[in-house]
């Protein structure tokens, strides 16, 4: 913190300047979030065989943060990723955003105990997160957006996709965590 700061608020000559203190963790989270957002945006341009299915590679970043910096930082990255990506894609508060947010929130809820128990590696964590993400997304879509029995026919395909993408993401996560040095390191 610079000299003259009082609780992060600095009085400049004439104009009042507000400066929020930025911790090292904030910078770390911001860097990882930027990476996750970039991946999310690239993925958003890829065509999808079915609505609701995408590789979810942005979650590799979340897994990386989870392994290196714990659940709190991972939650920050995931929340920022969903929020900022939706603003950039113009889907903020749209059904797409709600689905994305519900999925991310549910994945984080599952990751907290799964990570804390320490038995799962990146593959297991990624798989759990992907399934939780899809389950929450589907539940929301079914109860709120399209409450029609026909949607149930999609569930097996969607869950299969979640298992496959979760597994793939986990394998990538494991490889990345073994080899790469992240931003801020």
């Amino acid at each position: 913190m610079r000299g003259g700061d009082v609780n992060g608020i600095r009085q400049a000559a004439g104009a009042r300047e507000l400066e929020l203190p930025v911790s090292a963790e904030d910078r770390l989270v911001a860097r990882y979030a930027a990476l996750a957002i970039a991946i999310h945006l690239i993925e958003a341009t890829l065509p999808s065989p079915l609505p609701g299915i995408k590789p979810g590679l942005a979650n590799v970043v979340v897994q990386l943060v989870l392994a290196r910096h714990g659940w709190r930082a991972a939650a920050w990255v995931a929340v920022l990723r969903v929020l900022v990506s939706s603003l950039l894609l113009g889907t903020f508060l749209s059904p797409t955003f709600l689905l994305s947010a519900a999925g991310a929130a549910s994945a984080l809820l599952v990751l907290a105990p799964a990570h804390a128990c320490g038995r799962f590696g990146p593959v297991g964590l990624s798989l759990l997160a992907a399934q939780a993400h899809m389950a929450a997304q589907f539940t929301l879509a079914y109860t709120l957006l399209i409450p029609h029995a026909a949607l149930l026919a999609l569930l097996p395909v969607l869950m299969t996709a979640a298992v496959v993408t979760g597994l793939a993401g986990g394998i990538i996560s494991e490889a990345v965590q073994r080899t790469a040095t992240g931003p801020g390191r």
Partner: protein
Amino acid sequence: MTTADRCLIALSFAALVPLYVQLWGRDTQPQEARVTVDGQEVLRVSLFENHRYDVKGPAGVTVVEVADGRVRCVSSPGPRHLCERAGWLSASGDSAVNLPNRVSIEVLGRDRRFDSVSY
């Protein structure tokens, strides 16, 4: 990869099997058709009893025919005969509508092929 990871992978794939069996295994052949006038259901017919039904609406009579698991609109008072042109309806979710007479015919089933159809 830890032991827990391996167990989880096996469990995840195993859990998909009952999901497919439950949601895809059941018979999806439509059984019934519903006829509504002005949004009110006036007739629910089995698709396996061949019969003709006269449905009265505000513009006249719409004749609905059921034959061999299918249903169609035989005649209706609409000027463009869109109801008749929909032809035989056999898949779940198929529908024919006669707007002047406010009659709609819809094949009912657990799974619908379409969420909605617009002309």
